[in-house]
């Protein structure tokens, strides 16, 4: 039986794994390996050397040339070398040891247009021959599909750009030893356990380091390097006497482009302790069954971001609006375009901006079609003013862009979260503008005379219809509020909503201190491709919330 205690683990001297004859594997495929936890060698030592960007560029050029040679009138290629690290010590009472693994993915995707139809092929372990074969295969597919496709695919013109760009971090997480990563986990648990009955529920740090090259037959050649952080910490307070459990996410841990420096230091530990103390207070509220009815409501920033991400953000995906996902993910209530764009669909409190700046999770200088990214509004004071488009779909909005004096182009929102998937227009980082300063969560709650406070919603507890026009959700915690005071915690409540009504009936938004980032993870297309969409939103006070009861015995 292993004799690790968490503290024992932290103080045990490390094994020098290299001393046991372990040397870096020469892998070139997508692979995962377990990271030895007790090592002072940097994480990077357990992976092959980074692929030289010039090699990636050469491969991308080879793919484009092969596609053109095979007959494509347009081709683009994405080649990426991706390393991912995950360290996890969730529920330490049940998991005596932390877990970590490394994942390497080195692959490419070739997209071609032949006779007005798309073809796509991908592969792992790129070689010049492999990428050339894939290009030929994509052209063959497109040629066949051109006979059955409808109107030819046309792309809005975009300049063929060349350049390199990197996110900037102070400490590359892959230059840090596994020992140090594990110490971080232990310190987080320590911080939560300083509070009586406190511990952690979820405790996971995910890191990704990627070099991606884009090349196109237009002449674009772009190299970008990203280091991304996707942490997740939820503290838990378990009251043995009352058999209750409260889990709260630690605020300020947004997924973003950041290095290891973003999670070390006392500030994170202080936030963990403060959140645990808050959970400790919340668990002592009396409990009662949620009662069916209509109430005023306040959503905290996490709940607001989660529900907004599951509804409006998906609805702004232009491929959904155009019906391309009708037989897959679904359609959108934000269509037809002419009925929606420029119209006051939502509350005038609502202004939402898409932004891929250098610190955001979706940070990029150029998107996955080689278009320069830019911050742009999607909703301005309740009016939809743009969608998430690609070079293929942006032309549909040409008349609107002309009318409003906006340049007719996609805004750099074409995303392929993996080089082995096709790019499509979708959100990669959104911010809902906050309300007036001094209106935090507590101030919004104090304004309610008879209402519900919803704290935190997991994306997996939201069900939305295929047009995103309505749905139901359960919050992690719901509280009854009477005369501005929390009176009790509510159980078994489910909220039903109509999307337009929710976001039209916003009474007030919280200030910057109430902001919270929720990373919406979605799947789209057929076969499903994973997309990650962080949404940062403030707390919100709503005019109404419809509660139903699900408790029922057979």
């Amino acid at each position, binding site marked *: 039986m292993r004799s690790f205690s968490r503290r024992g683990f932290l103080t045990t001297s490390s094994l020098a794994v290299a001393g046991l004859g372990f040397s870096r*594997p020469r892998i070139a495929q997508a692979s995962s390996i377990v990271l030895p936890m007790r090592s002072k060698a940097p994480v990077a030592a357990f992976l092959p050397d980074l692929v030289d960007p010039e090699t990636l560029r050469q491969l991308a050029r080879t793919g484009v040339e092969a596609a053109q040679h095979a007959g494509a009138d347009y081709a683009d290629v994405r080649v990426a070398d991706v390393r991912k690290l995950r360290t996890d010590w969730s529920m330490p009472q049940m998991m005596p040891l932390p877990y970590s693994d490394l994942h390497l993915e080195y692959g490419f995707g070739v997209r071609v247009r032949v006779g007005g139809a798309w073809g796509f092929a991908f592969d792992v372990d790129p070689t010049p021959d492999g990428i050339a074969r894939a290009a030929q295969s994509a052209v063959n597919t497109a040629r066949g599909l051109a006979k059955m496709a409808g109107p030819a695919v046309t792309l809005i013109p975009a300049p063929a750009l060349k350049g390199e760009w990197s996110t900037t971090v102070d400490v590359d997480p892959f230059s840090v030893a596994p020992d140090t990563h594990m110490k971080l986990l232990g310190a987080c648990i320590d911080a939560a356990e300083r509070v009586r009955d406190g511990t952690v529920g979820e405790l996971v740090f995910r890191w990704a380091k990627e070099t991606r090259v884009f090349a196109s037959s237009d002449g674009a050649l772009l190299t970008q390097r990203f280091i991304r952080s996707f942490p997740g910490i939820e503290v838990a307070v378990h009251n043995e006497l009352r058999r209750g459990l409260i889990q709260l996410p630690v605020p300020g841990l947004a997924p973003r482009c950041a290095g290891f420096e973003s999670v070390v230091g006392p500030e994170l530990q202080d936030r963990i302790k403060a959140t645990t103390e808050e959970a400790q207070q919340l668990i002592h509220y009396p409990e009662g069954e949620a009662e069916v009815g209509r109430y005023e409501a306040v959503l905290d920033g996490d709940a607001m971001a989660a529900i907004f991400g599951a509804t409006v953000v998906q609805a702004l995906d232009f491929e959904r609006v155009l019906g391309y996902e009708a037989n897959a993910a679904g359609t959108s209530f934000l269509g037809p375009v002419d009925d929606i764009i420029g119209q006051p669909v939502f509350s005038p409190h609502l202004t939402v901006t898409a932004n891929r700046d250098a610190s955001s999770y979706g940070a990029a200088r150029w998107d996955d079609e080689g278009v320069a990214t830019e911050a742009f509004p999607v909703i301005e004071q309740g009016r939809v003013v743009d969608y998430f488009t690609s070079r293929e779909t942006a032309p549909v909005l040409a008349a609107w862009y002309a009318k409003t004096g906006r340049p007719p182009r996609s805004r750099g929102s074409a995303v392929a979260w993996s080089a082995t998937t096709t790019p499509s227009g979708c959100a990669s980082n959104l911010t809902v503008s906050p309300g007036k300063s001094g209106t935090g969560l507590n101030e919004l709650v104090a304004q309610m005379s008879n209402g519900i406070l919803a704290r935190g919603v997991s994306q997996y507890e939201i*069900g939305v219809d295929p047009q995103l026009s309505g749905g139901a959700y359960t919050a992690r915690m719901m509280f009854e509020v009477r005369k501005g005071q929390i009176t009790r915690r509510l159980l078994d409540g489910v909220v039903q909503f109509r999307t337009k009504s929710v976001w039209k009936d916003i009474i007030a938004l919280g200030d910057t201190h109430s902001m919270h980032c929720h990373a919406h993870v979605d799947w789209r297309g057929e076969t499903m491709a994973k997309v990650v969409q962080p949404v940062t939103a403030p707390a919100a006070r709503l005019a109404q919330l419809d509660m139903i009861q699900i408790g029922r015995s057979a």
Partner: protein
Amino acid sequence: MHHSLPPTRRVLTQPQLLALGKRLLAASDRWFSVRVEHVAYAVTKVANGRVSTQDGDRVQFFIVSAYGSGFPLSIDSNQLNDVTLGRVLEMVERAAPPRPPANEIEPDDPDDDQYYTYNAQALPPVALWHDSTAAAMDTARGEVIPALTEQIGKAGLMGATTVGFSARSLLYLYKQGLTSFSEETDSEVTVTARSKTGSASGWSGAADRDWSRVVPADVAARAITLSELSRNPVAFEPGRRVAILGPAAVAQLVFEMASAFEAGCVRLGASPLSDPRRTNGQRTKIGRRVFDPRLTLLSDPADQMGGFPPFFDDFSIEWKVKGYPTPAITWIEGGILKNLAYKVEGAAGLRLTAADVPRSAHMTTVPGTKTATIEEMIANCQEGVYVNRFSDMQLLDDKTMMMTGVTRDGCFLIKNGKIHKPIKNLRFTDSPFFAFNKVLMVGKEERVAFGAPRSTGEYQSRWPRLPVIVPPMMIQDFNFSALCDAI
């Protein structure tokens, strides 16, 4: 992918996988088991004249070490030439974990041979592979897609179609000898036909492991009919109604309730199949009626209408002895609960049969049951709601299996034995453990196509699918809890 395969094969054969597996296992004495999977898929999506494809080949090697760490080595590749295999072998050799000190080996270190030598009972013979499907992977879409596009266009509708094929071969190989292999093909056609104004939508689908049994034109015809019938829907008051659920709707309920059969959850009281009062001296409802007495629910790897690999695999309840055989199980017979899903060790301790939860399930009727067609159900309905399918399912409560979802692509008010008018979609909040006890009429079962209805999302969007075979049903007092604006 570069390897020698016969023309009707798209994935590695059993001898090829076995040879690969043995080489990998032999690469180090510290490796314990290997899983090698080869999946090929060809999925074509058409929407509003825009065609896109996602074709792929993936070989995954998954190797587990013997020393209680439980942490595996996983390698994905699209290449199977000698160079790539050489790299894989090299990595397998180098990444084998060192032997830990004796006092750090966990007591449940898998040296217990009784599970890993379990080859005495042959795997149940299954026939999941069809050459017709493998052969169609590259060619069928060139004929099917234009035909469906033309058919839907002639009806004056906008179509969104997915035609998908997949083939998979899978091997588990343990040092002690347990060896499990399966090969399967699958195909699916789904069509959503929408009016040009977007105000009406009909959906249909067909799935079969044997592509020669799929008739795409019938799928499109049904979707078109439903779309045409769905024009100008009106709002209908939610509430408890008689519901006639098409097979696709029933399948959504059945698929979502699979986890309720996991024995651990049942014993903890976290399932509708739990009995905390221990009425029969046990914490489960085994032996008690849980469904309508006409209903039987089973999972059979050799099911002629679907079937599945006859052993525990990824995403099953068993994490330790994957590859362990799972025979046919009858979960509910004549409404009586007969079995629960046990992991291998748990089953051995209780002298029961290990099996995964009924993610691939076949709901049928007991012999002698009078079944009815959907048309007969409609004719016998004074007032009710016909539901083509559900979408965006969400489980609300484990103990009761209360779930919610919305109707989609065909929802009609039935009055006086006829389809009276199309109605706007409705949200339901109910549990299959209530619904399947209020069955008025039941039909003949068929395998259902899932398409991509979300929430089942990742799991049921994998290729090949896990077949779900269910009948249509007429159910009393089904709870439609709210109107839904979605079309």
